[in-house]
Every structure is written in C-alpha cells, then in structure tokens.
C-alpha cells in the first residue's frame, strides 16, 4: 500500500507544484489583512476538495493503470484505504499550514494563541466531512457527478464563511462554541467516524465495480 501512496503523493505533488506559490501568496495576504480564518480557510478547503477529487480520478486519466492496479499484491480495501490516507495526509499538511498562519496572525495582533485552534479544528472536520461525501460519490458516479458535489460543497462553504463574516450570523458565538474543548473533541471524533464509514462504503462500491 505504501507504494500506491507514494504514487499518489508524487502525482499530486507534480500537479499542484505551482499551487504552492498561490498558497504562499494567499497566506501572506491573509496574515497581513488578518483574514486567515476566511481567506486561507476557504482557499485550503477548496484546494483540499480539488486534491481529493484528483486523488480518485487521476488514475482514470491513465486508463490502463486500473488493469495494473488489479494485478498488484494489494487488496481492494487497501487500494481504497490508500486514497483516504493520501487525502488525510494532504489534509493534515493543509491543517498545519493553516494553524501556523493562524498562530502568526494571532501573534501579530496580540491575541491568545489558543484562539487559532478552534477554527483549525473546524476546518479539518469540515474537510473530513467533505472528503467522506465526495470520495464515495466519485467512486460510484464518476468524475462528473463528483465535481458537481465538489462545487456544491464549495458553494456551501463560501456561503457559510461569507455569511458568518458579513451577515453577522454571529461569528463570535460560533467561535466561542468551537472554543469549547468538548465541542472540538466531539467534532473531530464525528469527523473520524464519518471518514471510516465513508471508507467502508467506498470499499464496497470499489469491490462491486471491480469484478
């Protein structure tokens, strides 16, 4: 399975090499304007959705890879698990970038560092939920429907973020709710359970389509 993981990381790294530059620009702008939660959060959320979609569909671009994959000493559940592990690794990397930028922002404006954690937790949980929905959809319905779901999720995220900021849906209340360690913990547990359930569903879909 590690071989397949290396393959996906290599392919995604090659594809998103230039995006790292955009990420750097977005991070600098977000820190300067004290908009890490909004700008960088939205940027990373959309990037994660794109990476997840690419992880599943990148093998379709090389139509013969599927044949090769089925001849490798890897079980179907491992093939699907590898996709989830790769997505989670990218998510973790994105989460760390977000957290570091958020900490930098808080340091700049003299706020408590702990304020950086609730939004990072929320971002990770939101990405996990998106991943849990998107990957089975991509396996079951292919790229077109998968991308439609991805756009829907992206739009929902944008509305939520914009709404929280500009329409005063109460971001202070929202952040204070997330600041509760119990809520953050429950959010992460729910995200992990949702991801595991999603993996089981995707494995079933992959297996039934495989043969």
């Amino acid at each position, binding site marked *: *399975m*590690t*071989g*397949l*993981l*290396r*393959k996906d990381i*290599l*392919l995604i790294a*090659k594809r998103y090499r230039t995006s790292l530059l955009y990420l750097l620009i977005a991070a600098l702008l977000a820190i300067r304007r004290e908009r890490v939660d909004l700008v960088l959060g939205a940027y990373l959320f959309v990037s994660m959705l794109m990476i997840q979609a690419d992880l599943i569909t*990148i093998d379709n*671009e*090389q139509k*013969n*890879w599927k*044949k*090769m994959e*089925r*001849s*490798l*000493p*890897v*079980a179907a559940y*491992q093939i699907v698990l590898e996709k989830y592990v790769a997505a989670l690794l990218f998510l973790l990397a994105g989460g760390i970038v977000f957290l570091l930028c958020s900490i930098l922002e808080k340091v700049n404006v003299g706020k408590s560092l702990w304020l950086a954690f609730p939004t990072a937790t929320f971002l990770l949980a939101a990405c996990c939920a998106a991943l849990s929905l998107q990957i089975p959809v991509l396996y079951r319905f292919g790229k077109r429907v998968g991308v439609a779901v991805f756009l829907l999720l992206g739009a929902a995220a944008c509305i939520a973020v914009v709404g929280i900021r500009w329409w005063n849906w109460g971001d202070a209340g929202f952040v204070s709710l997330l600041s509760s360690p119990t809520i953050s913990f429950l959010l992460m547990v729910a995200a992990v359970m949702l991801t595991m359930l999603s993996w089981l569903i995707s494995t079933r879909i992959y297996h039934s389509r*495989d*043969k």
Partner: protein
Amino acid sequence: MDTILRLEGVTRRFDTFTLQPLNLELPGGVIMGLIGENGAGKTTTLRLILGSLRRDGGKVTVFGKTLDGNEANIRQDIGVVFDECCFHESMTPKNLDTIFRGVYRNWSSDAFSKYCGMLQIPMKKKIKEFSRGMKMKLSISVAISHNPKLLLMDEATSGLDPVVRDDVLELLQEFVSDEEHSVLFSSHITEDLEKIADYVAYLHKGSLQFVRSKDELLYEYGIVKCGKNEFARMDKSDFAAWRENAFEVQALTENRQTARRKYPGCVIDQAGLEDIMLLYSKGTSQRGKER
C-alpha cells in the same frame, strides 16, 4: 518440474462470451504461449489467474495455493505485462522504482536499474517522451524486477517492431533460463511463440482446443494440400480440420509422417502455429460443423 499454475474447470460467463471449463497446467521453468483469435478468452484467462475477475466455477491454484482469499499474497510472486503501458505519463522510471519498492516485498532496485540499463531505458526521462517500444521494455523491466516466479504477458509484443520484439524475447529467455521462472505469454503473433515457447495452448471461442509442446506441434503437425476430388476420397478422421478454397483443400494432420505414407501423392508441408490456428478457427472439423 513442479506445477506452478493449475486451472481446473475454470469458467466465466459474460453476456456475449463464455469461457468454457478450462483445465490448464503450467510447469516451472517453461514458457507457455496462449494463442487464439481476438476475443478467444486469453485476457479473461489471465485475469482469472490473477483473481482480478470473479470466476463462475472451477479452481485456480498458483504456487500450490488456491487463489481464493490469497490473491494479494500470491500476486507478490507474479509479474504482469499488459498490451499497453500502464504507468502515468508524468512519471519517470526512477519514480516507478520508488513506487514499486513499496509494492513488492522482493523488489530489487539494483535489478530494475540493471534491466533498464540492458534495455537502454533512461531513468530520469518522463514516460510520455518514450516510444511504444521503450514503454513496453519499461513494463517488462518493472514486471520482472521483483523476481516473480510467474510472469503473465498479455499481448505484450503486439505493435512492436522486430528489433524491440527480439530484445523482449531475449530478455524472456534469460528470465526462464534458471528454470525457476515460468512465463504464460498470450499472443496472436505466433512467430514470437515459435521462437521461444516450450508449450502452446490454443483457445478458440472460449474453449481450450489443445495444450501441446511446441516441438511436437511443429514436428508432427502438417498441412496436406490436394485437389477437391482427391480430398473427397480421403479418410476425414486423419485430419483435425480442413479448409477449401477455389483451387485446393488444405487439411491439418496431427501426424505428418503417417499422412506422408498414407497419401504419397499429396504435398505435405510443416504446419506453423499460424496455420494451425487458422485451420482450427476457420476450418471444418470431422464433426462437420464450422468451428
């Protein structure tokens, strides 16, 4: 020689095609050619061996272990080469080394570098810049660098120029020379199999027609050529299949020497694998039905 692959009554039904109960044994240290027209069931057979396709019946035993539930473990000792390059075009052979090191327990980077060197494959060039011949050579290098006991090749030499095909065949001969490796080589380029195969299995419309040693086939089988009237007087049970054209009849005999004695007035040529395949697939058999 131990049997490394055994298929017993293996079947698979599709909407438009059925693989009839297939019985096949592959001993260690040999190259077996699997011939047949397009759609005869060669790829299906290979996929059933790999366990990547569900069987409707029968049993597959590889290295003495049944396939059911052991697929992933068994595949550690199987190398596969498909008719087209399966790797992502943005990769380089060096990337493939990194990837497959994490896939196969016995992967040897040294062996991979050695094969790439032998076949003149540049390690740092992107696969999209490779010619078809280079891609196939790369596929074979990947397939044998984990020292598999069994190599499955699915039409791997089709579309290659004679020079590249010769390189590939040489590599295969070297691969089986220690008698620890076997190759099951599906192809409709019978010329390649005449060069390297020890055994030939012939599939026709999903049914295995025969498995014979190549030497037996080439030395014993013959094509009897005669006129239609002359053929009408002949004993049809002497022939496996025959074909008529406007001028003559060509009949396939499984015993050239006997046919020479019995029909001294006829021209009897050695039968090549292509002749055998053509007569079996397009000719008429004694049962009077078109095969």
